[in-house]
């Protein structure tokens, strides 16, 4: 073995580091694996390959095959066996390779994982985390770019979250693993390769799974987004600033529960609300936000809440996805419509 073959991929794991979004999750997982021998990482190709997005890179080498488990190619099997492991006192973190591949496990997640605590009247807990790289814009083929989060948010018993910043990615994965509830953890795959600074010594932030954050303050309109759409909303806010419109961007972080008080507080200030997400707008999270804002801030609204999102069509071919995804221009168009009232 030559000197160059020595592993160099594991950086020091303390302090502030400039790393990729994917690596922030890797180090979050590394932290929980190191802290608790009952924590496991499992999924297809998570071991030697380090996952198709390399999010679990190096973890099997460090923690062994019993802690970082290469699973058979069977999503229901991954989640169903994770439930059994959780019943035995383990804390499995499952990786589903892509959004569109979660459906074979949908039954186990919605009929079993979500209800085990409830039907046992709290006698058992199933602290399973299911990581799902989601969203589009990466030029992928069918079933590799979808946003199925509303299907899980609609299911009681599941916590559904999505980080948009590197620090949140690191903090939220640790909080998800620490949570006694099952957490569906949607990772914006289009952001995996973005870089930034992460404080690896940040203290645990359990409330982070329930609370929105104001990503940018503003006075004229509130843009509500989560996951990959936060970046779009921030870019739109930049463009609006250039035109003299001050947009506040609220990053939901949590999809279930929704931090409605945070959204309402912002809308009461700005009087206008535009919700942005990649998932189809119909029956979606934007509809839920719009309804709640209307109920709780009706007299503060200067305009109806407007949604910007995907269409009621299957996620299109990659050559058309730029028409499907909520672009900065479509967000600006929605803001214009709001301001026109």
């Amino acid at each position, binding site marked *: 073995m030559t000197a160059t073959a020595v592993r160099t991929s594991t950086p020091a794991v303390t302090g502030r580091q400039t790393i990729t979004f994917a690596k922030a999750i890797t180090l979050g997982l590394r932290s929980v694996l190191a802290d608790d021998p009952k924590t496991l990482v499992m999924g297809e190709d998570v071991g030697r390959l380090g996952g198709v997005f390399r999010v679990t890179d190096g973890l099997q080498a460090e923690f062994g095959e*019993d802690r970082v488990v290469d*699973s*058979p190619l*069977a999503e*229901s*099997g991954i989640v*169903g*066996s*994770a*439930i*059994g*492991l*959780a*019943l*035995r*006192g*383990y804390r499995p973190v499952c990786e589903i390779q892509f959004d569109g591949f979660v459906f*074979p496990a949908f*039954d*186990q997640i919605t*009929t*079993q994982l979500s*209800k085990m*605590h*409830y*039907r*046992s*009247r*709290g*006698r*058992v*807990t199933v602290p399973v985390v299911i990581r799902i790289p989601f969203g589009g814009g990466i030029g992928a083929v069918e079933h590799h770019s979808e946003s199925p989060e509303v299907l899980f948010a609609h299911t*009681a*018993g599941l*916590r559904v979250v999505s980080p948009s910043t590197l620090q949140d990615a690191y903090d939220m994965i640790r909080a998800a693993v620490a*949570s*006694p*509830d099952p957490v569906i953890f949607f990772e914006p795959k289009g952001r995996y390769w973005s870089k930034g600074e992460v404080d690896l010594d940040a203290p645990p932030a359990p409330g982070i799974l*329930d609370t929105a954050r104001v990503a940018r303050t503003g006075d004229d309109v509130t843009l509500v987004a989560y996951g990959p759409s936060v970046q779009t909303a921030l870019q739109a806010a930049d463009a609006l600033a250039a035109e003299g419109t001050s947009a506040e961007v609220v990053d939901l972080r949590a999809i*279930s*529960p*929704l*931090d*409605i008080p945070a959204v309402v507080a912002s809308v009461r200030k700005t009087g206008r609300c535009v919700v942005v997400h990649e998932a189809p707008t119909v029956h979606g999270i934007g509809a839920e936000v719009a309804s709640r804002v209307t109920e709780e801030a009706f007299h503060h609204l200067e305009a109806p809440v407007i949604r910007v999102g995907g269409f009621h069509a299957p996620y299109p071919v990659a050559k058309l996805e730029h028409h499907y995804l909520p672009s900065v221009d479509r967000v600006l168009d929605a803001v214009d419509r709001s301001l026109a009232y």
Partner: protein
Amino acid sequence: MSDQATGEQGLVQLLDPAGVRVETDQNAAYRERVAHLQPDHLRAMYRDMMLTRRFDDESTALQRQGELALFAQARGQEAAQVGSAYALAPQDYVFPSYREHGVLHVRGVDPVDRLRLFRGEDHGGWDPADHNAHLYALVLGSQVLHATGYAMGVQRDGLVGTGDPTRDTAVVAYFGDGTTSQGDVHEAMVFAAVNDAPVVFFLQNNQWAISEPTTRQAKVPLAHRGLGYGIPSVRVDGNDVLACYAVTLEALERAHSGGGPTLVEAFTYRMGAHTTSDDPTRYRDREEEERWRRRDPLDRLEAHLKATGAWDQAWWDGVEADAEALAERIRVETRELGAPPTSAMFEHVYATPHATVADEAAWQAEYETETEAAR
């Protein structure tokens, strides 16, 4: 027409339908596993099968009286359930489907607690940790994966192959012939096989998945499926309590010692309806039911006990009294299970507070208070 899926070839049998011990070269190893059983043991098995049947009968009556929303009888499957459950070590863990009343009886789950789900009073009914017995599974096949995952946890706990019979631990997944068609069962067998998980797949082939015969699920004996995964598989006469006990004991020993999973196909018959909602006269004939009635698991053990002088009238009187007391208790206590308070709807949805649930619970409580006040 010989039917591969429903044929009786290769069944392990220790007690024939007339209650006579069967001695063949093939069952010698299994005979050794039951050689230590004394008349007291056999009478205890009979008693538990009898109480399981009485539980069935009384629960069915309660459903007819409108006291239960639904009930799924285990009648005809008492030998498979009691025999397999007798083989379990206390530390072993079972994942039942919704028909495993005999297994849960042997594990000590209170009979009234077992009816909470069917009464619509609770989705579970007992603490799994108290009995090492999980709650009923209604989405069939899901529990087979849970059992496999639990067994993978047992492995990680270092509780297989220790050589200490009080520590070595195994898991049993109970499911039926229809459930074998579910993808989750296939996935469970893949996971169990490649991980050498200490799990026993205890399949009760009761011939009917509601109205569909086993021939709608398989072209081959169901135990053959295990072989495709590299899982040792055995077919047993499911109405022979001794044989069910022996083959489960063998499977559990394999699991305990680190030898991995086993598939047991207990060839039996569901003598009642699938549940109180269906009508078996629409899909199966009297002749078939009569043929199986002659293979009744309780009659078989009774005949054996009588033929060997182990039937004791005073003991039998006690069993009858116990069965009547059980029925009486179910009758009285099930009716006393009231509806939980409305607030129970919102409890335990999450282990930690969730704003949506908290808001809706508060709204409901206020609505209820206002509605009461308006009356």
